[in-house]
């Protein structure tokens, strides 16, 4: 407990400020290493009609050129260990679905030699019309972005006995809420995709051991996850790989995809030499996963004194070209569409939509920041429409101990009330006495109208 309230020096701080912290790119092996570069798709969507790396292979300094045929297990899914079917090839087979998708990779004596070989690979493409706008994905004549269809065809379960193609959360009686409401307050929110842009680009150093084990110096944010991922693509059990975690030069979620570890490992396997793959800044911006873009439509059933009786949402999550973690992000998003508020009657619906954009991935809150945005914007809107104080609307509808979330979780210590009160205080807002005195204890008749008591106590379903 010595740490609480104390000013502690950062554990790695002394290394950071003296240049002694070792990032992956700083690791030096006595035997040196080869350098990797990838041939990436110049198109958003295309069929690969021909591929010829023979000229490239004969260039000086080139040790190996790998394609999908060299990857022991090419297709793998980021959530395969949860039973989610795999959909993403490590190296493209006969088509590319996003700009920057890796098709082949080269290991050479220097970065320049590797790049020269990449440039010498001859590929022909047949371009297809790409799909960028999630809202168009459902049109019958929309371009096809994914072999499963334009949206994830199942949530949970095996693909063979496909479950629902949407994530749905329902609780209470939405019809009752909309009938009983004095006003309906609607909103459409479209948070855009964001690139994490860590200052250290994706980088990996793969070192094959004589025993056959593959050692990867990784900048991953998710060690065991990446270990599983590398092992899967190499087609070896987990003890066939060893991941060495190094300092991470910024990640913000963008370094859970193991983007560089896997291809570096396959090149090391093929060349039997250590291989380093360091993405350029341009690759980082164009080809690494982003936070997903979202399209969210909301309708709230509210009383004139500011009670949110019900909420209906429709969400489209932009997964990009492959699933990666999108079923997880969509599920998490859907669970949280009520924000930090207790809304007794809800119906939340979400689709994970495929487009020809770079696959989206984790970023700070992973699916939930979009719900906080929609929930807080809605409260502001409700307050504006009804001419009420937005703080009071927040406190009225705030989560309380014992409230049931739409996903059936019963809240033990929800902090909405103290947090909103603290914000009001810092902002110099004088709350009315009954709101100032409010606590997170279960609601009583004092603030909660009698007819809502039973409503608030309802559990979830679905």
């Amino acid at each position: 407990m010595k740490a609480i309230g104390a000013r502690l020096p950062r554990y790695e701080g002394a290394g950071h400020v003296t240049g002694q912290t070792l990032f992956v790119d700083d690791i030096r092996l006595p035997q040196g290493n080869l350098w990797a570069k990838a041939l990436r798709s110049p198109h958003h969507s295309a069929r690969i009609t021909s591929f010829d790396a023979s000229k490239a292979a004969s260039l000086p300094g080139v040790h190996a050129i790998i394609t999908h045929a060299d990857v022991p297990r090419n297709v793998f899914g980021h959530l395969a260990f949860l039973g989610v079917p795999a959909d993403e090839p490590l190296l493209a087979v006969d088509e590319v679905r996003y700009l920057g998708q890796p098709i082949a990779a080269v290991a050479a004596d220097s970065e320049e030699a590797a790049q020269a070989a990449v440039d010498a690979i001859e590929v022909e493409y047949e371009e297809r019309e790409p799909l960028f706008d999630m809202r168009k994905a459902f049109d019958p004549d929309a371009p096809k972005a994914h072999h499963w269809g334009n949206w994830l065809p199942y949530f949970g379960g095996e693909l063979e006995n496909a479950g629902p193609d949407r994530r749905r959360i329902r609780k209470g009686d939405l019809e009752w809420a909309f009938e009983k409401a004095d006003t309906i307050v609607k909103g459409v929110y479209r948070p855009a995709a964001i690139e994490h842009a860590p200052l250290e680009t994706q980088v990996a150093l793969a070192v094959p051991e004589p025993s056959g084990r593959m050692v990867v110096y990784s900048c991953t944010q998710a060690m065991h996850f990446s270990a599983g991922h590398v092992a899967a693509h190499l087609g070896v059990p987990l003890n066939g790989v060893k991941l060495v975690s190094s300092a991470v030069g910024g990640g913000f979620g963008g370094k859970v995809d193991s983007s560089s570890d896997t291809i570096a490992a396959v090149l090391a396997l093929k060349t039997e030499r250590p291989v380093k793959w360091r993405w350029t800044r341009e690759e980082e911006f164009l080809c690494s996963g982003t936070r997903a873009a979202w399209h969210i439509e909301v309708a709230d059933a509210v009383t004139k004194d500011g009670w949110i009786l019900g909420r209906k949402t429709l969400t489209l999550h932009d997964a990009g070209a492959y699933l990666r973690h999108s079923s997880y992000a969509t599920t998490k998003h859907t669970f949280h569409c009520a924000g930090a508020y207790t809304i007794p009657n809800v119906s939340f619906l979400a689709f994970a939509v495929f487009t020809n954009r770079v696959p989206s991935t984790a970023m700070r809150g992973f699916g939930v920041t979009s719900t906080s945005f929609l929930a807080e914007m809605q409260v502001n809107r409700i307050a504006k429409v009804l001419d009420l104080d937005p703080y009071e609307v927040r406190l009225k509808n705030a989560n309380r101990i014992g409230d049931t979330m739409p996903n059936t979780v019963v809240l033990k210590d929800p902090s909405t009330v103290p947090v909103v009160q603290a914000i009001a205080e810092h902002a110099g807002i004088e709350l009315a006495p009954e709101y100032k005195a409010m606590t997170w204890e279960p609601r009583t008749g004092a603030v909660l109208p009698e007819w809502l008591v039973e409503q608030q106590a309802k559990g979830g379903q679905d």
Partner: protein
Amino acid sequence: MKITVNGAEHELASPPLTSLLNALRDELNVTGPKVGCQGGNCGTCTVLVDGEPRRSCLLPLAMVDGAEVTTIEGLGTPKRMHPMQAAFHFYYGSQCGFCAPGMITASVALLERNPNPTRKQIQNALGGHICRCTGYVKIIDAVEAVARGESFDGAELTRSRGGEATPKGASA
């Protein structure tokens, strides 16, 4: 090509158009300066060339023949930090650590030129230095602290757990 790096003289074998950054990192194994963009846009490769902050990714060796180069490693070590390093450490000016090599060398050069910069002048001097984690407030706080003459007890700063490090000799 000859350069002096952190006090040691080196005869370089890299070709004259090699960037100083690559020569430092790949030929001399001086890995403090980082590769952030290789295009002059992020600042993390900054080193002092004859005392001036320069982006080493944009400097061909041919232009630094005979120069005196100081990298982050040349400023101090964990037990003997340069006051700027200590201030960055104390004020939590370095979260992931990737931008620190450039931020700190550029800040040292700033105080050489202008020992009492305003906050605005610090901002301008660090304008081309990108930090994606810490944000800029703590970094600027650290530079201001050094300009104010605050100094820090190195032993306390490197202790990893427990206790409170206090700035000493603050002359606000």
